[in-house]
């Protein structure tokens, strides 16, 4: 032994410490990786040694390497060993390492529970502190559940140092284990008035964090916080409280009124920017309510913000605060428009993005064009696609907000959209496309202009689609094609556009765009056909038909099913038309009838909002379903497919009238169902007219005044000018009118009028946006949407805290099952293998001043003390642990807690020995002597004592009766008291968690000298992972291997029995097959396990 120690110490002298490692790494700059891998090998050697100091040093070095990015998860077990060292120096290092590298996926984490519990109750406050700190970093739901009660107790620790840490960590515990919130909350609330400022600020911190997520549950605390706010001088605390009030005021407007004064005072008096910022942030939404809105105060805040928050380092905050003010007081911010526009030039992306957000809220009819023009310049200059994309979306957002409220000239807007298509590499082509479609559909007056622009886009498609692979912009062609087709009546150069759409290059576009092309070229073709027929140009009409027949096959060959299907369908149709044309039958009318009818935009949720009429059951069968419904479902589709393929293969030219009508139906159906057909309206309400007359067909009027421009040239500018002129004219007219009015009214309303001259409302838009209100069906139901994210981790903490606590909500209290060997010389050597524990009903021995009722309750809880005259309350929890060194001993650790106000002393524990189990007594004492507990308990203190028991056989569970006698000393003198109890030795407490490798496990199973038994438990709802954790935890097993919902587990008894388990999880049940050297032990173990599992 001594030799080994000598060897260990000498080794240590040559070991690298952390400093050496750091120095070494710095000296090996060229071959750092090699040096470190060498170091890791050394560390692995060091970890194998028994000396805890060497291990701690190794773990410390590993922590450093972890920071450099090396994986140290393999050493998790060693870290736990170091954590469980008794010396603070090592413990500290162990917990640090754990806090750095443990996370929920770390499997050994559940082994730490008992160690942490032990450290939490350590008499040394720094042990407790270091455990709390570590736990705060890696707490898992299981740890939170198991330790919640221990931490809650620590919240009333005598040392403020511990109290404050315990309070803070409760927040993490709540997040992981929301059930703990209600039981712990009253105590947390108490801590708001703790005499120690540190504890108080910690409590404020936790409650504010909780309240910010779910403010409504914390309204009742408002008066308390108000008191704290007016009395506290600690800025850190004040900020938290003010933030809390910010969350509460929307729920309780009266609170806002009360807050204004103290907050304004703070704003004027404080020198701390952070506090000022928080106050302004909170005060601004309060000022929204009309009673409190005094604009001058808001202006004052804005001015203050302007000066305080616009140095470059904090500019971001200024913008952020402004955007808050903007929501309630847009006018006060608008005066800083130039400043905000300047921010767009900032190098810092966050600042630019914030500025963009602000601009969104600042636009008005008057300044929209100017702002967008500025933004367009930035789009050109912008580096980096992300920012450019952001600009693009913002431009579109700004323009389209509240149904294009601020757009006065849609020609301008369309040209902006067209200019945006010149952006290379943007991802937002579909956004632009959606806008084009939306505007063209909603703003009827603009269609003509839109169509001309779209035709131009189609003509220049090669510019846009030059790089289809990474170019999202080709999406706009989708919109362009659709607009040109749908509103083909407005098209001037239809022929040219049609040819553009039939170019071979089109086939390189994405499938869904080609499909729209194909569909819309028919619409275009139909309108051209009609024109030509009306003009009597039969040859021209035939030419155009021939063109279609020549070019369509390239789409028929498309690999995209949709394109192919549409193209082949249309090709057949046109071939048929050609036949008719040859016979000189006028066809245009019928062809155009295919696309008759007007499209109305429909709000996305319109369909959902139509109320179901009374008496209509949507789930009822209209016809009884046929018996073989499945094959019925399949058939029509396959027929349809077959037909399609036959058509495209054989190109059958003969189509009779009936076929044509049928196909027309099909097409109508297709259009109605095709999601691509009208993008902005998922439930198109196109009215198909079965017998359209010529009078329904709009006559194309060619208006040459529409400016056509070569693409690639910015032209929105000219609209800005045009618009200005228009407005000027409008204004002049208005002025004239006003003069008249003035004359009439003799200046009665003069002031009022002049105020309004410049206002937004006076600028009438050049085109009107249609159908804003008509989109919803009649009797649409207002639906309240659930915006809340169901995955929000804080949602679970939305708990009513004012309700009284129910019994079922009490925190689980765990029975302690950890023990160390009786002060053996190597207590330093960690016993991690054994450190798992077993929560059970806490065996409480209470003595209380009695009322009959309570007595009963106590008895129900199997409290062994029969009510006598009661003076004090003593509670004891115990934990049984197998002894690794001795195969017939177990250690029982009992934690005694004095819950009374009296002093407890001369405690003595005695147990009635059974044949099988005996308490180990000091030599020379008889079996009837008790063992004195080696400490006394002052009020409110707890301490742990250990007792060793010897057992002959461990195959059965044991129950031992015992008595605890003690003297209670208080002011009135001292009394002798006795307490009876039972100790329950379950079979699992004889097991020692022992890791086992799968090959060794397999050999063990093959050996054949194991007995087998199995159980099955139904009604299991918890996850398999959780279930395994429970088995490991309560029954001291370790997982050998896990495949899907099947796992093998292993454990060993203190007498060397091997226990192997195969756990399988079915739908709602779990089966456990066990093998063990001893069949009695196995069946007892399985019985215990069954009991645990059936509680799941």
């Amino acid at each position, binding site marked *: 032994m001594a030799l080994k*120690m000598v060897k260990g110490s000498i080794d240590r*002298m040559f070991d690298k410490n*952390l*400093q050496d490692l750091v120095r070494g790494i710095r000296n090996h700059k060229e071959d750092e990786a090699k040096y470190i891998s060498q170091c890791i090998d050394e560390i692995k050697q060091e970890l194998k040694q028994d000396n805890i*100091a060497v291990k701690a040093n190794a773990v410390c070095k590993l*922590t450093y390497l972890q*920071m*450099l990015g090396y*994986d140290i*998860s393999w050493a998790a077990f060693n870290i736990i060993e170091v954590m469980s060292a008794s*010396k*603070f*120096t090592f413990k*500290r*290092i162990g917990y*640090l390492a754990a806090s*750095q*590298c443990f*996370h*929920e*996926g770390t499997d050994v984490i559940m082994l730490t529970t008992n160690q942490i519990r032990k450290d939490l109750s350590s008499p040394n406050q*720094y042990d407790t*502190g*270091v455990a*709390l*700190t570590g736990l*705060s*970093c*890696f707490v898992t739901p299981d740890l939170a559940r198991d330790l919640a009660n221990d931490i809650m107790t620590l919240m009333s620790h005598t040392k403020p*140092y511990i109290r*404050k*840490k315990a309070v*803070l*960590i409760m*927040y*993490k515990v709540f997040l992981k284990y929301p059930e703990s919130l209600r039981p712990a909350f009253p105590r947390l609330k108490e801590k708001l008035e703790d005499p120690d400022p*540190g504890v108080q*600020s*910690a409590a404020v*911190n*936790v409650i504010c964090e909780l309240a910010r997520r779910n403010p409504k549950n914390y309204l009742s605390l408002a008066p308390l916080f108000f008191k704290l706010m007016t009395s506290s001088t600690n*800025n*850190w*605390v004040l*900020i938290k409280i003010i*933030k809390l009030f910010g969350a509460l005021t929307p729920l309780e407007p009266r609170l806002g009124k009360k807050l204004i004064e103290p907050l304004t005072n703070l704003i004027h008096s404080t020198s701390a920017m*952070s506090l000022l*910022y*928080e106050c302004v942030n909170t005060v601004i939404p309060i000022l929204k309510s009309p009673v409190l809105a005094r604009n001058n105060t808001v202006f004052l805040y804005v001015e203050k913000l302007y000066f305080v928050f616009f140095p*470059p*380092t*904090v500019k*971001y*905050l200024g913008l952020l605060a402004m955007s808050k003010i903007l929501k309630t007081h847009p006018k006060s911010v608008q005066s800083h428009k130039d400043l905000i526009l300047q921010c767009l030039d900032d*190098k*810092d*992306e*966050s*600042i630019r*993005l914030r500025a963009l957000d602000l601009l969104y809220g600042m636009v008005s009819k008057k300044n929209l064009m100017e702002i967008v023009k500025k933004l367009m310049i930035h789009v050109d200059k912008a580096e980096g696609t992300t920012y450019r994309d952001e600009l693009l979306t913002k431009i579109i957002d700004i323009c389209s907000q509240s149904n294009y409220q601020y757009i006065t000239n849609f020609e301008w807007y369309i040209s902006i959209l067209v200019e945006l298509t010149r952006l290379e590499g943007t991802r937002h082509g579909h956004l632009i496309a959606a806008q084009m479609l939306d505007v063209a559909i909603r703003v009827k007056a603009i269609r003509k202009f839109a169509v001309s622009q779209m035709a131009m886009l189609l003509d220049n498609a090669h510019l846009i689609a030059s790089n289809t692979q990474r170019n999202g912009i080709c999406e706009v062609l989708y919109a362009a094609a659709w607009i040109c087709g749908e509103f083909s009546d407005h098209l001037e150069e239809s022929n040219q556009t049609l040819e553009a759409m039939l170019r071979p290059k089109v086939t390189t576009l994405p499938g869904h765009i080609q499909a729209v092309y194909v569909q819309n070229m028919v619409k275009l073709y139909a309108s051209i056909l009609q024109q030509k027929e009306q003009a009597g140009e039969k040859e021209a009409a035939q030419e155009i038909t021939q063109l279609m027949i020549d070019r369509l096959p390239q789409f028929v060959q498309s690999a995209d099913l949709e394109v192919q299907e549409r193209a082949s369908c249309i090709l057949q149709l046109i071939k048929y038309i050609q036949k008719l044309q040859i016979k000189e039958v006028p066809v245009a009318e019928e062809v155009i009838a295919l696309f008759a009818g007007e499209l109305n935009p429909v709000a996305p949720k319109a369909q959902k909002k139509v109320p179901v009429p009374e008496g209509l059951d949507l789930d009822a069968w209209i016809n009884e379903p046929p018996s073989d419904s499945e094959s019925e479902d399949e058939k029509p589709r396959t027929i349809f497919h077959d037909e399609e393929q036959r058509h495209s293969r054989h190109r059958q030219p003969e189509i009779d009238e009936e076929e044509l009508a049928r196909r027309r139906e099909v097409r109508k159906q297709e259009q109605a169902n095709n999601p691509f057909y009208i993008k902005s309206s998922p439930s198109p309400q196109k009215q198909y007219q079965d017998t359209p007359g010529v009078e329904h067909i709009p006559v194309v009027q060619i208006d040459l005044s529409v400016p056509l421009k070569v693409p690639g040239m910015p032209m929105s500018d000219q609209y800005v000018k045009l618009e200005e002129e228009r407005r000027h004219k409008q204004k002049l007219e208005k002025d004239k009118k006003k003069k008249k009015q003035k004359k009439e009214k003799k200046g009665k309303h003069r002031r009022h009028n002049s105020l309004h001259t410049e206002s937004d409302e006076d600028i009438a838009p050049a085109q009107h946006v249609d159908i804003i209100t008509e989109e919803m069906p009649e009797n649409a139901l207002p639906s309240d949407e659930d915006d809340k994210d169901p995955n929000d981790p804080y949602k679970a903490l939305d708990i009513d805290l004012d309700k009284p606590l129910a019994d079922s909500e009490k925190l689980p209290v765990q029975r302690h099952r950890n023990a160390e060997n009786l002060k053996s010389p190597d207590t330093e050597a960690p016993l991690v293998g054994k450190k798992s524990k077993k929560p059970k009903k806490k065996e409480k021995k209470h003595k209380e001043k009695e009322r009959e009722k309570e007595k009963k309750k106590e008895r129900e809880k199997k409290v062994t003390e029969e009510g006598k005259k009661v003076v004090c309350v003593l509670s004891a929890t115990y934990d049984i642990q197998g002894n690794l060194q001795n195969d017939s001993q177990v250690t029982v650790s009992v934690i005694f807690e004095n819950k009374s106000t009296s002093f407890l002393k001369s405690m003595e524990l005695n147990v009635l020995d059974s044949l099988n189990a005996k308490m180990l007594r000091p030599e020379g004492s008889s079996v009837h002597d008790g063992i004195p507990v080696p400490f006394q308990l002052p009020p409110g203190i707890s301490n742990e004592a250990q007792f060793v028991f010897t057992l002959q056989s461990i195959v059965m569970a044991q129950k031992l009766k015992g008595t605890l006698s003690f003297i209670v000393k208080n002011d009135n003198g001292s009394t002798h008291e006795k307490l009876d109890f039972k100790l329950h030795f379950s079979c699992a407490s004889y097991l020692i968690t022992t890791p086992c490798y799968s090959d060794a496990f397999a050999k063990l199973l093959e050996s054949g000298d194991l007995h087998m038994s199995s159980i099955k438990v139904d009604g299991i709802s918890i996850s398999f992972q959780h279930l395994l954790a429970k088995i490991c935890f309560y029954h001291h097993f370790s997982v050998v291997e896990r495949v899907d919902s099947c796992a093998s587990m292993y454990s060993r008894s203190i007498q060397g029995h091997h226990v192997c388990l195969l756990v399988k999880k079915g739908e709602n049940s779990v089966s456990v097959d066990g093998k063990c050297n001893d069949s009695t032990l196995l069946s007892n173990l399985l019985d215990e396990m069954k009991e645990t599992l059936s509680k799941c």
Partner: protein
Amino acid sequence: MRFMLLFSRQGKLRLQKWYLASSEKEKKKMVRELMQVVLARKPKMCSFLEWRDLKVVYKRYASLYFCCAIEGQDNELITLELIHRYVELLDKYFGSVCELDIIFNFEKAYFILDEFLMGGEIQDTSKKSVLKAIEQADLLQEEDESPRSVLEEMGLA
């Protein structure tokens, strides 16, 4: 607060503290990404930036960047003050701290941080009480260490 990082101008991580446990891989990715973003910024730029769904508050002290990631609703300025307070604590503890102090005594830097912040929340706003706690813990450590001379361990004393 979600996490705190200390890294040098050369992009070497000096300290990392995660208040929301996440996997090693995810951490590494975030560290790399964030370091790139912050190091690319010019000295006169704003101390706050939006990054992923978080806000990053950073400040440079000599060759070290102190960098905190906070949530959207948190107060940026108090975070900046918090960084400063931490630097002050380091300064007090080491006596005019430099990067090397933090490299060679990285565990101490962690201990100080742990006394100052816990679970991402400020634990104690008083510098004095933080330093006192650290000093006492160190004292305890020295008590542990002092009797362990080499001879004693060899069992000769």
